[in-house]
């Protein structure tokens, strides 16, 4: 059985009772020896012997009488001012340093009922920081007149030992995660796991975070949520500053980020703080960080590492303590290889990297996001909009099918819902509205800026009766080849696009010829595929 060791002050108020009637008063230190179900094997008692020698002697004698099991060790402790935090902490810290704790064989208890409130705070801090490797012991006076021992309770600062507190934390955690997901009950396991990690990192770490993912995957929204969670937890107090680096081009980029001094260059008529300084004690979200120029990257690295940087035209450095979240839809690792991105900056950013999957990779999350987008529409327009049951099924069937590419991810979904809601009659989205929207989406995804889809090729028009002889295997390949040809200005350009990878390794190339021969296999020529 482990020995119980109590560490505490002899109280100059509550413990200081003399005469026979002292036994009828609750004295916290002596009462510790009077509990039927708690044996104190040793008491390490702190007291200033210059003032309290008589008291110490009496407490030791009384403890010996009521608790012969207890060995009492008195520690003469001089504290100039027991209400002064620094000297109290120092004295107790010294005391702890002198003790040779043996937690394998002894359980330690810091008795916090006696001593000044400052002493109580210091004992708490030392216990929490494990300088005192034990638990807190709180004693309280008796309720009944006959009793003088009172009550005691042991407070373990390891909060996971308390079921109800653990439940609370669990609930808080769930709320935080739900908050990061904007309250959307997402079902994609990989995504949910990632959110759990982001929650932990957001709360515990001020280090930069890198959010990777295609456009519209929700990087910006997530960054803002992370900021708000950090602000709730008090780890940031400043603002959320957001900028898409693709919009920072040319001379203005430096000054937008790092600020400038008045008169630093033509047009600098007044001083500008810059985004980094605006984000002081807050969060700076740099989206599309891969678009940042070389000079800006160098300066940003220094700003992350030292929290200091030089505004344009200034010869004095300024400070900003911001937490960085970076977003990118490019593979920064590849950018480094091509010299477009600094590897040392990437190393800094790559500590906490999270890859946000696109909507097409999270098809099970389309339904909860559909509800979310509907609610969002309702909130912003103050109009109630509902799907007809059949319409909803039809839309979801399409949205979750392989047909739906969602190249713009959540942005596409939001726009789609917004269109259907706007066109809905009397707040009901009906089947015809959904059908029209599906057609609209197909068209949009086929249009100029998106690559043409193999699925859009009309093989019958192209091949006539021969379409029956076309294998599915060939259909996919031919579809893509035709789509590329139609986007290209001439045969050579199409060839270069189609054989881009093998071009790199071959010494002599004749891509046009390869393409011509391929088309000929289906009895097609350049003009056949492009003119239709």
């Amino acid at each position: 059985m482990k020995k119980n060791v109590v560490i505490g002050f002899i109280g100059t108020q509550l413990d200081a009772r003399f005469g026979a009637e002292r036994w009828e008063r609750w004295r916290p230190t002596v009462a510790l020896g009077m509990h039927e179900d708690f044996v104190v094997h040793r008491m390490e008692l702190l007291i200033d012997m210059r003032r309290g020698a008589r008291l110490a002697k009496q407490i030791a004698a009384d403890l010996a009488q009521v608790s012969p099991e207890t060995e009492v060790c008195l520690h003469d402790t001089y504290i100039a001012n027991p209400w002064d935090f620094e000297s109290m902490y120092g004295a107790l810290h010294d005391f702890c340093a002198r003790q040779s704790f043996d937690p394998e064989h002894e359980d330690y208890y810091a008795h916090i009922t006696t001593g000044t409130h400052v002493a109580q705070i210091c004992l708490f801090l030392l216990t929490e920081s494990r300088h005192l490797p034990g638990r807190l012991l709180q004693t309280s006076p008796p309720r009944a007149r006959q009793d003088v021992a009172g009550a005691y309770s042991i407070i373990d600062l390891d909060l996971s030992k308390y079921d109800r507190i653990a439940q609370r934390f669990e609930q808080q955690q769930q709320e935080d995660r739900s908050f990061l997901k904007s309250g959307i009950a997402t079902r994609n396991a990989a995504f949910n796991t990632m959110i759990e990690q982001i929650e932990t990192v957001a709360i515990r770490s001020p280090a930069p975070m890198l959010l990777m993912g295609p456009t519209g995957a929700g990087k910006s929204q997530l960054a803002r949520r992370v900021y708000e969670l950090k602000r709730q937890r008090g780890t940031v107090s400043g603002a959320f500053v957001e900028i898409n680096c693709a919009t920072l081009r040319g001379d203005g980029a430096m000054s937008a980020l790092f600020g400038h001094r008045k008169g630093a260059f033509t047009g600098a008529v007044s001083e500008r703080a810059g985004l980094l300084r605006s984000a002081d004690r807050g969060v700076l979200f740099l989206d599309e960080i891969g678009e940042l120029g070389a000079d800006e990257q160098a300066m940003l690295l220094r700003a992350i590492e030292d929290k200091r940087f030089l505004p344009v035209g200034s010869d004095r450095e300024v400070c900003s303590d911001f937490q960085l979240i970076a977003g990118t839809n490019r593979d920064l690792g590849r950018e480094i290889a091509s010299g477009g991105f600094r590897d040392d900056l990437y190393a800094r950013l790559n500590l906490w990297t999270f890859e946000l999957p696109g909507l097409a990779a999270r098809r099970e999350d389309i339904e909860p996001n559909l509800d979310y987008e509907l609610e969002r529409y309702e909130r912003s327009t103050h109009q109630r909009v509902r799907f007809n049951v059949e319409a909803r099924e039809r839309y979801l069937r399409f949205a979750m099918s392989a047909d739906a590419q969602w190249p713009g991810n959540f942005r596409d979904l939001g726009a789609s819902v917004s269109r259907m809601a706007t066109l809905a009659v009397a707040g009901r989205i009906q089947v015809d509205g959904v059908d029209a929207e599906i057609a609209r989406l197909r068209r949009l995804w086929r249009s100029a800026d998106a690559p043409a889809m193999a699925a859009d090729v009309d093989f019958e028009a192209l091949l006539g009766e021969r379409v029956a002889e076309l294998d599915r295997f060939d259909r996919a390949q031919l579809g893509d080849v035709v789509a590329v040809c139609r986007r290209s200005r001439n045969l050579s350009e199409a060839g270069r696009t189609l054989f881009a990878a093998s071009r790199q390794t071959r010494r002599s190339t004749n891509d046009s010829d390869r393409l011509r021969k391929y088309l000929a296999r289906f009895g097609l020529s350049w003009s056949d595929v492009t003119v239709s």
Partner: protein
Amino acid sequence: MLELDGAAGGGQLLRSALTLAMCTGQAFHIRRIRSGRSKPGLMRQHLTAVDAAAAICSADVDGAAPGATALRFTPGTIRGGDYAFAIGTAGSTTLVLQTVLPALLCANTPSTIDLQGGTHNPLAPPAEFLRDAYLPLLQRMGADVELELQRPGFYPAGGGALRASIHPCPLQPLTLRERGALSGLQALAWTSGIAPSVGERELAIVQRRLGLDAADLQRRTVQPPSGPGNALLLFARHEAVCEVFCGFGARGVSAEAVAERTCEAVRDYLCGSAAVGACLADQLLLPLALAGGGTFTTARITDHLQSNARLIEKFLPVEIDWHESDGCWQVDVRR
């Protein structure tokens, strides 16, 4: 290994089991110790009894910890000698002494035992009870035991001291059907660390209620006091037996009320014809069983006595029976 259910009786069941285990060499395993109490399991005063028993017979003990609800006790050989035990929380010295006394009577060599703690505790026999009521009967059975109350100690401060000298000898059966003629009534009021007038007021009531001579009233003060306390002891001496009754002063209870209540108990006893009161009856069972037989009469068969009898029968080859006779109960212990 004898299996015992601790729920059948409180701390007393455990103490009796310890005594019987020491005297018979029979190991036991007790479960559900003091179950149903607000603080179940072993308390510090019980642990002291376990420790004392273990020290005297070199027992192997498993599970002795505050709050433990199960305990395994395997006794070894009893060794006489000089022992000292201090009991925390002003726990009863008399209960610990009663636990180990029968065992030391079976030892090879004489013993002295010094006990510190409470000597006058509610829910425990006071030292004077052991000295004037219990031990004279043991002496009649052949035991050679002397008891000295060196210093009274009261709850909550404790600080009392008790010393017993024990010369081992075999116990003979005892027959105690009649208490005999009344030879004297006496009163003793202890005060410690409180106004001595408390004792005076108690004695005044005793004198009035029981009609005692002034010479039979004694007031004593503990000097120097180790804590506050008050006990009123009344001795009813008959030819064959002495009974001791005790009342305790407490905060919020007047000295007069304490005295009235104690006198009431004495009068109840005097009105009856049984030889011994409930407390003494309970405590006589064990020595009688160790002696292999005996008989006494008592006014009531208490739950304590019943559970104690059942326990003794588990350890020793005896039968304990009781039947009503002449308005009281006769208890017989037979092999």
